[in-house]
């Protein structure tokens, strides 16, 4: 191993001929980083995976449902080893107003059997498992190590600087998987500008409850689990809420648009407290002991915020590249991170073998993203974040729909039942929704989700 000859700044400039310490340095032991390291190590490259937490996953949080089918390509029969809490067999989409709740509840026992669909998992277990897979493939996993900057040779990225003594590490390619707000992608100049409106903050409480209580309240058995995505319940701040079942705990949380949260001067924990006090939610979470409170940013704007994902000597994957799919009733980040990490790994192997780790040599990464569900789903759902987080969808449609349904099912004898069309027209007016806007949003929704 040969150290760089000169370094400067928070990162540094490296000059002079040198051999690299590793073929690939992967920064971040989240799902993206571990999948990238796994693929590159399996191909026989010298891979170092650097993670700032004491173990991979120790610092990571999310809502709680992972869709791991992409792992079919990486870890055959992954479901026999993955640290899963419950397999999702019930998926509800719930609409909340202050006093009302409406759910579309779907259940499929097919999802209880391999290869399953979604699963609840806790990140310290999930991320650690994936990192162990990377280590078993030959990647060197170094924890408690924060990358503080990039090393450059001219404009080419040739390694990273860490906070450890003697902590510079040179590599042929750096894979930045350092999560949302990636300092490495920013330092490499890959992000154009940061806009707070592109982010939501996710806040979650984990409440411990006995398994039997969860089974009974959520109407499930064995390892079956429930995913409830909620529109409303965010105290007037644009966003959404969720409630998931783990084995012996439930995760309840909210995802809130950052500028709206700041403007309304609300505290996220107050919003969760109000959500838990909602008559439709209280019976599900009552008596749960708070065992964890956590918060994290989500890159919510999809294509609108995506940086360049390739530079000379570097690729960016997962949340670091804003690849999380946050489109209303879909909040999928872990599968997008695992897939982009996998494609990053494949492209790096290709570039290293071809002896060209320039932006051109690494262009296979962009191509793989574009050809896969990663960018296809983002393209397909590109209007979803702005539609779902719009004021009308957030504040006007929920009472309109809930009041319409309430009146539809209300028995006001001796008055006869009113017609649905009339109720809808009245409730639309009461909610202050113009026909023109309703038609436009319906058209947008068709184009987005259709």
């Amino acid at each position, binding site marked *: 191993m040969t150290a760089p000859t000169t370094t400067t700044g928070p990162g540094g400039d490296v000059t002079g001929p040198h051999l690299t310490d590793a073929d690939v340095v992967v920064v971040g032991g989240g799902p993206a980083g571990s999948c990238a390291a796994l693929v590159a190590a399996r191909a026989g490259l010298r891979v170092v995976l650097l993670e700032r937490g004491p173990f991979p996953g120790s610092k990571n949080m999310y809502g709680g449902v992972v869709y791991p089918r992409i792992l079919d390509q990486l870890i055959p029969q992954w479901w026999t080893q993955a640290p899963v809490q419950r397999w999702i067999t019930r998926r509800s989409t719930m609409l909340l107003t202050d006093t009302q709740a409406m759910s579309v509840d779907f259940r499929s026992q097919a999802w209880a059997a391999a290869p399953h669909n979604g699963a609840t998992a806790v990140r310290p*277990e999930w991320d650690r498992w994936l990192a162990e897979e990377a280590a078993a493939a030959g990647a060197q996993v*170094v924890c408690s190590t924060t990358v503080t900057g990039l090393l450059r040779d001219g404009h080419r990225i040739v390694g990273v600087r*860490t906070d*450890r003594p003697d902590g510079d590490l040179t590599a042929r390619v750096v894979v930045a998987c350092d999560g949302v707000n990636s300092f490495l992608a920013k330092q490499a100049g890959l992000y154009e500008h940061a806009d707070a409106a592109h982010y939501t903050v996710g806040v979650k409480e984990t409440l*411990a409850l*006995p398994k039997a209580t969860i089974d009974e309240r959520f109407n499930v058995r064995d390892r079956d689990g429930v995913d409830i995505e909620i529109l409303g319940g965010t105290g007037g701040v644009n966003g959404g809420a969720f409630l998931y079942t783990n084995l012996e705990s439930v995760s309840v949380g909210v995802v809130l648009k950052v500028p709206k949260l700041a403007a309304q001067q609300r505290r996220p924990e107050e919003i969760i407290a109000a959500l838990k006090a909602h008559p439709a939610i209280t019976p599900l979470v009552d*008596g749960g002991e708070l065992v964890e409170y956590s918060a994290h940013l989500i890159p919510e704007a999809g294509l609108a915020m995506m940086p360049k994902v390739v530079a000379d000597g570097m690729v960016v994957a997962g949340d670091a590249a804003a690849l999380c799919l946050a489109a209303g009733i879909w909040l999928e980040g872990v599968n997008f991170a695992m897939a982009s990490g996998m494609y990053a790994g494949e492209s790096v192997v290709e570039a290293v073998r071809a002896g060209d780790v320039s932006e051109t040599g690494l262009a296979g990464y962009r191509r793989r993203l574009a050809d896969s569900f990663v960018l296809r789903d983002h393209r397909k759902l590109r209007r979803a974040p702005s539609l779902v987080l719009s004021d009308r969808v957030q504040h006007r449609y929920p009472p309109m729909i809930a009041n319409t349904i309430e009146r539809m099912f209300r028995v006001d004898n001796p008055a006869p039942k009113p017609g649905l069309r009339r109720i809808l027209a009245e409730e639309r007016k009461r909610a202050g929704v113009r026909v023109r806007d309703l038609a436009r949003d319906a058209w947008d929704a068709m184009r987005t989700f259709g």
Partner: protein
Amino acid sequence: MIAACLKWSAATGGWSAADQAALELGLQHAERTGTDCVAVTVGPAAAAGALGEALACGASRAVHVVVDGDLPSWDTAVALSAAVAEAITVWCGDYSADRGSGSVPAYLAALRHCEQALGVVEARPGSLPFEVLRRLDGGRRERVSVTGPAVVSVEGAAARLRRASLRAQLADHSARLTTVAGPPADHLDAPVVAYRPRARQLPAPAGAVALDRIGAILHSGTPARRGETVELEPPAAAAAILDALTRWGYRAGGAAPGGATS
């Protein structure tokens, strides 16, 4: 030779803060007295990686007693005592990352027939004799002089483990790691996961105002139960202690030494 005994936990993939402090004090002790520091772990194969970190931090050697499962504290102490037989001072953490009973250091001292200083909060190790500060009940402290071969167990705040350089962290340490087979262990059927407290339903506290209710939860204003002083012959005193521990729920009626897990 100085030894540092470290309990690797599958739940966290590492050591407790107390074990880290033990390693740091062991390293300092070895540096000040010009001798070797050996890091010892009794644990599963996965613990080897953590011993690599101890070597990266500066331990001269590491011994991994491989056990595939969980050992009672007594058996852990027996396995450790063979590995640290030549050590003058053995540093241990006073609790492990998987919330064991903390009894291994005391058993180890008993097996080695040496001095013991348990629950140490401050130490400046050096040539014998050196002093350590122990935590006692009721916020009191005791200054103890270590005069000969000893087992010292330390709290996490006693020292902060140094950071290994990145180069040391990446280096291959396998030549300085000795692996020996340990005794057969109990297999845990359930996977080891990070400790998460179970939910308990408690009655709502009484009190008209919030302060009273908080007081009720914290038992403030309730006179603390004073300790009982009994004067008995040692065997009767030991029986009285065991009886009290059983009544308070710390012992499942008449467990033999070594019954607790490490």
